[in-house]
C-alpha cells in the first residue's frame, strides 16, 4: 500500500512537471482556440498548426475541438462565465449572436480582411463592424443524380407542380424520390430553414424581428405552414420506415448507389458522395418555393472570431493573417472539406460535379445568403427545438398546428 502510494505521488509529480510552461522554453505565446467543427472539418486544425508553426514558431496553438451542433454553444456559455478563449471558430451566424453580447473583438479594417472576398467580410460583420473572418462557404439545396435525370428526361423543377411531376416519375421508375436521414434532427432543422429562406425571408427579411415583436406568428403564417408541409412532402416520398434510424453516411451511400434520386442537403454531403464513389455525377438546384423563384443558398461557414478580452491580440491577428494569406493552406482546407472558397484567388482542386450548376446560378445572380434566415432565427435553442417538434409531428405524435404553436411559444429564445 505504501509503495503504491509513493508511486502515484511520483507519477503526479512527473505529470505536473511535464506540463508545458513549467520549464520555460523561451518566449512562446500560447493562443487558446475553441473550435466548433462539423463532421467535414475534422483534421483541418493540423493543417493550420503546421502553417502557423512554419511562419511563427513562437506561437503555439492550444486547441479545444467540439462538435458545433451540440457543444459549441454550451462551451461558449461556460466560457462566458470564466473567460473566453482567444480565438473562437464557429459559423458565420455566431457573429450576430456573440457580437450582440459584446464579447467579440472588432476587427474592422484589419489588413488580412483584404484577403477575403467582399461577401465574406459582409457575412462576418454585424451592425457595420466586422467581427469574424469567414473562410469558406457551403451551398445548400437539392442534390440530384444527374445521370438519372438525364437518362429519364427529367428537367430541373422550378415550381412545386414541377417538383411533384419529378416525384411521380421517380416513383414510377421504382426509385425513392428523396434520400433522408431524419434520425439526425439537425437535418430536419436545416431543410426547414432552406425552405424558409426562399419562402419567408425572401418576402419579409425581418420576419424574425417581427415574430419577437408579436406582429407575426408561425401559427398564422401560411408561408411557414407551407415550409413545414414541404417536410411532409419529403417524408411521404422517402424511406419512411427507416429514416428515423438512418444516419448520414448510409443515406448518402444509398443515394450514390442509385436508390434515391434527390437529397435536400448541403456541401457537407459532397465528402460522403465522393468517398463512396469518386465518379458520382451530381448537381444541385434550389428547392422550389411557392412563387417559383427560389435562389440557390450559400452559407458562409467556418468563421474565426477574436475574444475582446484576449491578452494575445497581436498573436491572434498573426494567426488570422496566416490562415487568410497562406494560399496552400487554404487550398488544403477546401480540398479536405469540399467547400467553396471565401478567400480570394484560391481555387480548390477537388472535383465538384455540382460546380457547373452553382456557376449557372451565380451568373444569373440567383444566390441568397443563408444568413438572411440564420441571422433572424437562431439555431441553438430555437431552430433545433422546432426540428424536434417537426419530427414529432411527422411521426404522428402532435398535429401540425401544435408544432407551429410550439415554435411560437419559444420565440423568446429565437434571438440570435
Amino acid at each position, binding site marked *: 500500500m505504501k509503495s503504491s502510494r509513493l508511486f502515484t505521488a511520483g507519477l503526479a509529480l512527473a505529470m505536473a512537471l511535464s*506540463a508545458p510552461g513549467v520549464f520555460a522554453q523561451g518566449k512562446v505565446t500560447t493562443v487558446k482556440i475553441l473550435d466548433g467543427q462539423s*463532421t467535414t472539418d475534422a483534421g483541418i486544425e493540423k493543417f493550420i498548426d503546421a502553417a502557423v508553426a512554419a511562419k511563427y514558431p513562437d506561437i503555439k496553438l492550444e486547441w*479545444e*475541438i467540439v462538435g458545433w451542433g451540440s*457543444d459549441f454553444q454550451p462551451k461558449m456559455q*461556460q466560457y462566458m462565465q470564466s473567460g473566453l478563449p482567444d480565438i473562437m471558430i464557429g459559423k458565420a451566424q455566431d457573429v450576430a449572436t456573440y457580437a450582440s453580447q459584446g464579447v467579440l473583438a472588432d476587427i474592422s479594417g484589419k489588413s488580412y480582411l483584404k484577403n477575403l472576398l467582399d461577401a465574406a467580410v459582409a457575412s462576418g460583420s454585424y451592425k457595420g463592424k466586422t467581427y469574424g473572418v469567414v473562410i469558406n462557404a457551403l451551398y445548400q439545396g437539392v442534390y440530384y443524380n444527374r445521370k438519372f435525370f438525364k437518362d429519364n428526361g427529367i428537367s430541373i423543377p422550378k415550381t412545386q407542380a414541377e417538383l411533384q411531376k419529378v416525384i411521380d416519375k421517380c416513383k414510377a421508375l421504382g426509385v425513392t424520390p428523396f434520400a433522408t436521414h431524419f434520425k439526425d434532427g439537425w437535418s430536419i432543422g436545416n431543410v426547414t430553414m432552406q425552405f424558409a429562406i426562399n419562402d419567408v425571408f425572401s418576402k419579409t427579411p425581418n420576419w424574425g424581428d417581427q415574430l419577437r415583436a408579436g406582429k407575426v406568428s408561425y401559427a398564422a403564417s401560411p408561408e411557414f405552414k407551407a415550409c413545414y408541409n414541404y417536410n411532409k412532402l419529403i417524408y411521404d416520398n422517402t424511406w419512411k420506415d427507416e429514416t428515423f434510424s438512418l444516419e*448520414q*453516411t448510409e443515406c448518402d*451511400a444509398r443515394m450514390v448507389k442509385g436508390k434515391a434520386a434527390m437529397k435536400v442537403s448541403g456541401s457537407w454531403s459532397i465528402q460522403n458522395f465522393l468517398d463512396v464513389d469518386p465518379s458520382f455525377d451530381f448537381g444541385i438546384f434550389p428547392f422550389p418555393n411557392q412563387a417559383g423563384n427560389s435562389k440557390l443558398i450559400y452559407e458562409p461557414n467556418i468563421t474565426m472570431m477574436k475574444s475582446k478580452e484576449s491578452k494575445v491580440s497581436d498573436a491572434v491577428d498573426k494567426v488570422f493573417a496566416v490562415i487568410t494569406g497562406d494560399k496552400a493552406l487554404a487550398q488544403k482546407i477546401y480540398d479536405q472539406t469540399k467547400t467553396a472558397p471565401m478567400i480570394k484567388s484560391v481555387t480548390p482542386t477537388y472535383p465538384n460535379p455540382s460546380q457547373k450548376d452553382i456557376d449557372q446560378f451565380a451568373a444569373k445572380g440567383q444566390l441568397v445568403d443563408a444568413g438572411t434566415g440564420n441571422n433572424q432565427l437562431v439555431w441553438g435553442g430555437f431552430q433545433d427545438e422546432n426540428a424536434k417538434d417537426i419530427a414529432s409531428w411527422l411521426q404522428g405524435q402532435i398535429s401540425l398546428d401544435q408544432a407551429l404553436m410550439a415554435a411560437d411559444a419559444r420565440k423568446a429564445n429565437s434571438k440570435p
Partner: protein
Amino acid sequence: MRKRTTNAVKDGPRYTVGTFVLQVAMTLIATVVSLPVLITLNYSFKSRKELYLGSPLALPQSPSWDNYASAFSRLSMGTTFLNTLLYTVISVAIMALLSGAAAWAIARNKGRFFKFSYVYFIVGILIPYQALFLSIYIIGFTLHLTNTVYGVILMYIATGMSFGVFIMTSFMGTVPIELEESARMDGCSVYRTYWSIVMPLLKPAFATLVIMQAFQVWNDYLMASLYVSSAKLKTLTVAMQTLFSQQATDYSTAMAAIVIAVIPIAVLFGALQKYFIKGMTVGAVKG
C-alpha cells in the same frame, strides 16, 4: 466446517435433463449478450467503405489495424489515457483515505456531530451531480479549479465521498475494537491508532472501494467534459464522445476506439475480481 452429507439432493448437484435444458438456454443467452461486443470487434477491423457498402454481419474483407492506428491518434491516446489514469488513481486514492478516516471516526463515536455526518454523507448518494452541473462549473471556475488537474481530481473526490463513506462504514465491523483500545491505552493518539492499527486491517475494504470507484471515474463523462475540456487535459471517455459525435460518418475508427478503451478496464477487473465482487455484495448479506 460444515459437514457435507453424501445425499445428493442439495449439495453435489445432480445434472438432470432440466439442468441440460438450462445449460443450453444459458449458452444461447451468453451468445446473445456477447453479440454487441463481438460486432464491435468485427467493425473495428473493417475499412470505412465496408461499413456502408457491406453487411454489418460480414467479416472484414482484409482485416487491418488501420482503424486502431487512427483511433490512437484521434483520441490522442497517449495523452488522454495518461490523463484518465492520473485522475482516476489520485482521486480514488485520496477519496479512499478520506472516507476511510471519516467512516472510522463516525463508527467509533456516538455524538450528534458524528450521527449527523453519517446522514450528511449518505444523502449525497442520491444527489445526481448531473442535475447540478452548471452550478458545479460555476463553483469550479470561481475557485479557479477548471481546466486544472487538481480541480477535476477534487471534484471526483467530492462526488465519491458519499459512496466511500457508505462502503467503509459497512466494513468497520471487521476491525476489532480491542486492538484500538489497547493502542489508545498505550498512549497512541487517535491519528496514530488509525494509521498504524486500523488502516492495515482495512486493506480489503480499501481494495474493494478503490476498485468500485475507479471504474466509475474511468467511465465518467459529464464531470470530465465540464472540468477538463482542453486538449491536453482531456479524458478518454470525453475524447470518445467527441469521436462519436464528430466522426459520425466514420464509425470504424470509433469501434476501434471502443475496443482500446474497454481493454484496460476488463484487464483490471479480471485481476481484481475478488475485491470487486466483495464490494458489491457488502450489505447484501444478512448479518
